[in-house]
Structure formats: structure tokens, C-alpha cells
């Protein structure tokens, strides 16, 4: 799979779910790509580098989201 194709798949799937959910577990993303976790990781890491995805962390768990989405995004950017 090309990086662009993977990104397209992720962005489409996540955008569709935005109404109910803005943060996703790594495994949710691997499932969208229909890839084994280790293979999926290469694409997902690249999407973070390309700023198509961003990390969210509670400290104990990490999740992924589209940049600038979710309740927290507003709260975190206010000064």
C-alpha cells in the first residue's frame, strides 16, 4: 500500500466517525488499514510525522486523532 492510500483510508474513516468519537486506539487504526500491527505502525508513524494524525495521551494510554479535533483540542489551545 502507498503511504497516500493509507492516509486517505485513515482520514476518511476517522472523519466519518467524528460525530461520536475523536480519539482512536492504535488497534482501531490497524483494523482500518487491514494490516498487522507492526506493518500498520510504519504508515501510522509517518502520518504523525506528516501531521495527518496527532497523538493524545492520558499518561497511561495513548490514542490517535485527526489534528485539531475533539473537545480537548479547543481547551488545550486556549491561552
Amino acid at each position, binding site marked *: 500500500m502507498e503511504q497516500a492510500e493509507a492516509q486517505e483510508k485513515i482520514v476518511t474513516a476517522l472523519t466519518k466517525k467524528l460525530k461520536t468519537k475523536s480519539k482512536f*486506539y*492504535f*488497534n482501531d487504526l490497524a483494523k482500518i488499514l487491514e494490516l*498487522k*500491527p*507492526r506493518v*500498520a*505502525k510504519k504508515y*501510522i*508513524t509517518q502520518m*504523525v*510525522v506528516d501531521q495527518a494524525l*496527532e*497523538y*493524545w*495521551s*492520558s*499518561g*497511561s*494510554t*495513548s490514542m490517535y*486523532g485527526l489534528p485539531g479535533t475533539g473537545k*480537548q*483540542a479547543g*481547551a*488545550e489551545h486556549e491561552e
Partner: protein
Amino acid sequence: MAKHETPLLDQLESGPWPSFVSDLKQEAEKRAKNEKGVEFQIPVDVVDDLLGVLELSFKHKRTHWKHGGIVGVFGYGGGVIGRYCDQPEMFPGVAHFHTMRINHPSGKFYTAEYLRQLCDLWDFRGSGITNMHGSTGDIIFIGTTTPQLEEIFYELSHNMNQDLGGSGSNLRSPSDCIGTARCEYACYDTNALCYTLTQDYQDELHRPAFPYKFKFKFDGCPNCCVASIARSDLAFVGTWRDEIRIDAEAVNAYVGGEFPPNGGAHAGRDWGPFDIQKEVTDLCPTKCMKYEKGKLYINDRECTRCMHCINVMPRALRIGNDRGCSILAGAKAPILDGAQMGSLIVPFIKVEDPYDEIKDNVIEPIWDWWMEEGKNRERLGELMKRQGFQRMIEVLGVDAVPQMVQEPRSNPYIFWKEDEVEGGWERDIDEFRKHHKR
């Protein structure tokens, strides 16, 4: 004069123990005076406001922190934990109060110079409050603002040869005991293994793709000074497979009172003369020792390497020469199903640079299994419980050994697979009927 009144916190200073409240007040005062002329990059009264918000939480019996967020340094999915105060007008100094985890050095060996550098950086760009160390082992920097994060990371990584640690669904900063660097009980070089795996698994440490956290801990011997057996998903505990080395003369020197037992650790009061039977042989958990006619015998086949006898008489008894480690998997703190200790998966493995056997045959197969089968937020120990220990050893491709069995025959439901049974499931029914009527 304190910025906020803190009568409830002041109470905590009244007991006989050192108090973090006193420490915080001292730090608040130090920042206010600023005798060193530091150009503070975050509010000077950050510590006063921390005390203030804590007092308020005591009063309300509720937290005023919002925990978690997107903050971090570019490219890393861990090492920074976002934290915000939900009363920013009242406590502007802690409106942003992020935690940073700094990967502690192997064995936690520091030079004074390095500690000073860390503290100077943190006084300058953070609250000055640290936690040495967090439960994973990291140096914890408590409290800074978002714009400082990249600056601190740059300084750490470019000028101090230092990296951030793990947080979230990452490999957490691996942690080890002082090992062969200073301890004669060490059965392998914990510092070398810890350092190598930290370097080799940088991607796992910084870019989260696990179902949940994952911890490595390395203990040089079963004394478990970093409590690997209780606190890590994969615990590497040093051990040996030959005999405990006995210096018969030194044993008798202990018996004769020449050497203090336990390296003199119990010197605080008079416990009476040393009694080898009461204090050593009777306490051997496998009862594999005896002291007769001035001679100590150990049946090493039965010894479980508990370290007790060696700890009591370190000058007389030494770890064996054929050394390596045992690997245990699945320890964790409560949350689901209560706390769990590690289960033995590899009774003995040699620990030799470049550690390929450990990486290829143990760590990576376990990760592959857990990443594919683990549910979100499921620790390895929980997956092991859910799918069974049998599945675990299948993943590793090892045979069951007696040490893996906690107690014999308490579970009648052992399901054999066809390829594990000689002759498989096929049988000659005529042959069978010869001996068994319908």
C-alpha cells in the same frame, strides 16, 4: 508571606515524618527570593499556586486537574503528560502544568555535575519540582508550560546526552538494579542489557502502538532490588544453574562470630550469638541445606536460588559460575483482577551480548502476540490470564517445565492437542473393540 492560606496542608507538616508540603514551601520561597537570578521561563509563583490548588482540592474533596492531552515533543508519542488546572483564574501559575518523564540512566548512576545540570534546567524552564524517581524509574519533572517542552527536549538531547522516557501505550523506560557495576550478587550485567534494549527498542519507547503500557525490568539476582517480578511485564531476574560456591572456612568464621551476619545490617541491637541452624538452614525454603559437624551441605538440585543463605553469609556463600537469567512475564498493579506477580516463562537463558536469543525468541514473539490479540488497555498479564498460560508457551514455542506449575493437579481441564499426543486421535476401532465391548 505565602500567596495562599493552606491550613489543611499545614496539618500535614505536623507529624514526625518529612513532609512534601514543607519541601514545596521551601521551593516556593526559593523561587520568590531568586538568589541565583534565574530568568524563570514559567510563572515564578508556580509552586505557590500548586499549594493553593492542592489546598482547594482538600477542601472540595475533588481534583482540580484535567489530566491528559495532545502536548508532547514532535515525533514522540510519550514522555510528556498534559495536565491543566480547571481553576486557571485562581491559580494562573499552574494553568498548564505538564509532566515530563526523563529516561533515568542505567542503574541510576549519576554524577553530581549531571544532577546539577538537570536541576538548573528545570529551575529555568519548569517548576523546579522533581520526583526522583517515578515508579517506572524515570526522573519526573513536575510542571511546565507547553512552549517550554521543545526547549527542554532540545537541551536534554543536544547538550546533556539525555532522552525522554516512555509513557502511554509505549515501552516504558527500562529499569535495572546496579548490577555487576557494584554488586557481587549480580548474575549478569543488568546495565548492559537495560541500555542495549533501551537503544534497540527506541521506536517502541517513543511511538505508541501497544494495547497498553509495557515494562521491562532487570534484576541481577533474585533479591530483586527493582522488584522486577512484581512490577514489570517482562522481568529478567539473574540466576545460576550450577552450585552455590561454599567457602567452608568462612562459614565457620560466621558460626564462630568472627563475621557479622547479613553484612552487619542488623547491628542496631544485640540479637545474641549467630545461630546458623536457626538463621540459615531452617529458613531455607526448600530445606535443601544442613550444617553438620562443622560442615555446610547444600543439595543444589533442590535449591530455588532464593538468595537467603547468601544474603546472611555473603563472605562464605557465593552465586554459582554458570550464570544467566530467568524471565518472568505478566506482573502488573491492580486495576483489573487485582495485582499479579510475574509467571516464569524461561527458567534459564544465557545473557550474552548482542542478546539476540532474548530479543528474537522471547521479547518479539510476545509483542507480536499481544499486539494482535490484546484488547485495548489490556496488559500482557491479563491476556495471559484470558487466553491461558498454555497459549503463552505456545507463542514462545517452549515446552512446559515443572517450574511453570504453581501446584500440581488442581486443574483437571488440560486440553491436549492432537499433535501433542502420540498416535494422534486416529485409532483402529477393531483393535479397540477386541478389548472393550460395546
